[in-house]
């Protein structure tokens, strides 16, 4: 049995990272040139890592499945990025951000990692500013901040509703600079389909060229996965439709433990599903809850137009249930409350699966101009997609799958349980516990890529300087390539009648219904059985027209859906195992008399890291006990 060792440095929390950096092993510049690093993914974490490793002098190979690195899904983050600059003089500090993240994550994250993420947040903002990211500024020429996600300080830096885009394009520009200098080689339109391990160390990957269909071998001294999350497991989510966990999953099957797979954040304010063909749910930034009021009619099945329903017949259920935080409760709480109302029959819209987000009062108080300045682009987006004009009628919103706190288990070095395989950004599990706070995803991804990984990977590579460039003629590459080809051929040879997307939709429905916003043992067990049946159907009735040596988008989808069946199975196992409610994971069996989530710290204060033991064999659970030294574990109440 592999024993989990998080390798957290000794010493007081605030000094761990400083001490680590001071004592980490280094690689001299002449040797760096001889070392190859593969980075998969070009989001904030991936492109950040690739460019900073390139600056250090390593030879980096950077991969993405999109046509250009600038399209990685970090681009879609709207709200902002946190940093503890305390420019507002409102009492912010590294410790305060650390504390907010630990509490927001419902005490299921690792103290040392979270503290480090908060610690490097200021460097991230400085670096972005230096790279020309046009953050919002005030009239004095200084950076502006806003408050975000129900915290008590204003520490969120933003660029209108497009912070992710601006940060990503900044990162893309630093990546371009390294490409121009020859330290980074870019491989776009490549999908990683296998990990290659030689003598127990990660030494490369197998990719498919999505244009020619060619299966390619790429070797390196270490591999970094920055491949994002698996939110599209619900099919409909706020993610890009091609986002997928396949790379991480291949790594998992090669020995990397997968941690807390059931921790998946459901974002409360997305545009609801309008039709059965819908391919994605568009997020409406959380910032809307600063001024919008969420409500449903007090009467069931009220068919009146929203504006015809008088004030006393409206149920502002968040304000009613959580008077202290009101509409600004954290995401998981807001999502569950919406689901509760809709399940009880008070939902609005064609499907009854929506609640109102109303700006009537805000417009009355502040005027349409002020509201437009704050949310103009979001209102316009809503109008384009739904035809509803939010200046006149309330928006319809409903929760949607958004962000995965779970991911590959990593130690303090951000290394997985396979030596030489690192995981950064959303693809790892470490910083957000059971629930992520707003504006901390960009922060963590950038921190990992720019400021943490370069130190920890050097510490690892320092022991590898004598290893010459890895040849791709090794038997291990041969075998990996063979297994990839066999699997692709198996997929195209099924020759059934149903499309990959139709399976994905059905898979998503099962997961949304039984392993979504609220879960119970019976449902999870049922889901497990349904998943098994659907998986069997997939492997006997899938259809992929066109061949392997060409652009074949159906083949791409099918490969990802095939992996999703396995991810889903593990997710359900993890949800079954964790009989407590915590953060985004809500087990109906574990609730307070008022219906709030009830944590079980005695039995579940651990990270569940799952080991793959073989096809159709049960996953093996490893527990990393969580110790809280610097915060007091408390009930998370927003009443």
């Amino acid at each position: 049995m592999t024993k989990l060792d998080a390798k957290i440095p000794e010493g007081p929390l605030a000094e761990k990272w400083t001490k680590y950096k001071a004592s980490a092993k280094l690689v001299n510049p002449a040797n760096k040139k001889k070392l190859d690093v593969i980075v998969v993914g070009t989001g904030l974490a991936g492109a950040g890592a690739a460019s900073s490793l390139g600056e250090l002098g390593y030879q980096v190979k950077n991969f993405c499945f999109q046509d250009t690195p600038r399209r990685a899904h970090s681009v879609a983050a709207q709200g902002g990025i946190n940093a503890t600059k305390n420019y507002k003089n409102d009492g912010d500090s590294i410790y305060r951000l650390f504390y907010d993240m630990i509490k927001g994550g419902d005490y299921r994250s690792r103290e040392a990692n979270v503290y480090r993420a908060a610690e490097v947040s200021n460097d991230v903002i400085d670096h972005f500013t230096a790279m020309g990211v046009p953050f919002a500024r005030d009239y004095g020429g200084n950076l502006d901040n806003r408050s975000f996600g129900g915290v008590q300080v204003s520490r969120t830096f933003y660029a209108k509703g497009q912070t992710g885009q601006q940060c990503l394009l900044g990162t893309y520009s630093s990546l371009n600079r390294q490409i121009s200098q020859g330290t980074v080689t870019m491989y776009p339109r490549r999908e990683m389909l296998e990990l290659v391990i030689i003598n127990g160390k990660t030494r490369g990957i197998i990719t498919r060229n999505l244009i020619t269909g060619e299966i390619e071998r790429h070797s390196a001294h270490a591999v970094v996965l920055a491949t994002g999350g698996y939110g599209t497991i619900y099919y409909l989510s706020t993610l890009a439709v091609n986002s997928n966990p396949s790379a991480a999953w291949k790594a998992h099957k090669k020995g990397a433990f997968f941690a807390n797979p059931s921790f998946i954040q459901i974002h409360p304010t997305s545009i609801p599903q309008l039709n059965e063909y819908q391919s994605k749910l568009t997020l409406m930034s959380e910032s809307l809850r600063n001024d919008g009021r969420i409500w449903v009619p007090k009467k069931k099945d009220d068919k009146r137009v929203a504006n015809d329903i008088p004030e006393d017949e409206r149920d502002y259920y968040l304000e009613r249930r959580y008077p202290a935080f009101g509409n600004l409760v954290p995401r998981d709480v807001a999502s569950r409350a919406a689901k509760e109302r809709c399940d009880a029959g008070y939902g609005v819209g064609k499907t009854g699966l929506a609640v109102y987000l109303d700006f009537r009062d805000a417009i009355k108080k502040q005027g349409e101009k002020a509201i437009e300045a704050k949310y103009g682009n979001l209102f316009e987006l809503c109008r384009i997609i739904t035809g509803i004009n939010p200046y006149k009628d309330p928006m319809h919103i409903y929760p949607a799958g958004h962000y995965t706190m779970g991911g590959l288990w990593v130690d303090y070095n951000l290394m997985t349980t396979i030596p030489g395989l690192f995981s950064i950004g959303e693809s790892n599990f470490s910083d957000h516990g059971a629930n992520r706070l707003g504006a901390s995803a960009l922060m963590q991804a950038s921190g990992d890529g720019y400021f943490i990984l370069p130190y920890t990977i050097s510490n690892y590579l320092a022991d590898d300087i004598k290893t010459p460039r890895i040849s791709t003629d090794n038997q291990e590459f041969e075998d990996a390539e063979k297994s990839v080809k066999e699997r692709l051929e198996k997929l195209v040879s099924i020759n059934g009648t149903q499309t990959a997307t139709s399976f994905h939709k059905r898979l998503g429905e099962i997961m949304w219904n039984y392993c979504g916003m609220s879960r119970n043992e019976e449902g999870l067990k049922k889901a497990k059985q349904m998943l098994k049946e659907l998986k069997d159907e997939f492997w006997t009735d899938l259809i992929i027209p066109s061949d392997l040596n060409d652009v074949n988008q159906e083949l791409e989808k099918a490969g990802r859906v095939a992996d999703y069946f396995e991810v889903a199975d593990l997710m359900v196992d993890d949800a079954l195992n964790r009989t407590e409610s915590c953060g985004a994971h809500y087990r109906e069996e574990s609730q307070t008399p008022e219906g709030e989530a009830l944590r079980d710290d005695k039995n579940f204060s651990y990270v569940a890291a799952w080991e793959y033991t073989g096809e159709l064999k049960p996953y093996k659970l490893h527990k990393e006990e969580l110790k809280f030294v610097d915060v007091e574990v408390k009930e998370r109440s927003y009443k």
Partner: protein
Amino acid sequence: MKLTLKIWRQKNADAKGKFVTYDFDGASPDMSFLEMLDAMNTKLIKARIDPVAFDHDCREGICGACGMYINGHPHGPGKAITTCHLSMREFKDGDTIYVEPWRAKAFPVVKDLIVDRTAFDKIQIAGGFISTNVGSAPDSHAIPVEKRKADEAFDSAVCIGCGACVAACKNASAMLFVSAKISQLALLPQGRIEATERVQAMVNKMDELGFGNCSNTGACEAECPKEISLVNIARLNREFYFAKIQ
């Protein structure tokens, strides 16, 4: 909705393409254009016909992956939207819709409606960045930036690199794209340091890649999903002249 779709089909970069007509009656007004294509592709797949290949990803108008030339407009009719945001409400029952890939020498067709836009990356690699290493940044407030300029830089920076400007331009010019990046970095004090080299390097690369010349027709601005202004092109010109006479 019943539609007649005339779609450009081309097996790969070397193949000769042609328009293929599809009669499709499975569209509904609350679909997006891409969802309509998804539905049509499902029908094709079930008939064991190679589905229409097109680039797409975020489907919320920010990644810049999608892009088709629909009835004479990049991203179709409708102002300031990407193809993924184009709603079928814009069309009527019985409409004939022409769907073509971006056409430009610098954007060769890869397959069907997918084109190769790496030329854009190459222009950015030529100089679309500020040379600052990780760890070397001063505090963000060390250099204040006039709000007006910061806002203007942001307006230029929202470009999503979709290529609609090139597709719309009768000359297949990339000036709007290039000028947006030049402007963003030229407006910020951090970017001024390298402004002279940057504008020359990027313009030279743009020329080398076979984009056409700008003749100020304004089609790019009219079709840009992010409403990037022609003011940027004028700024690029200015930057270029000043760089040349230095």
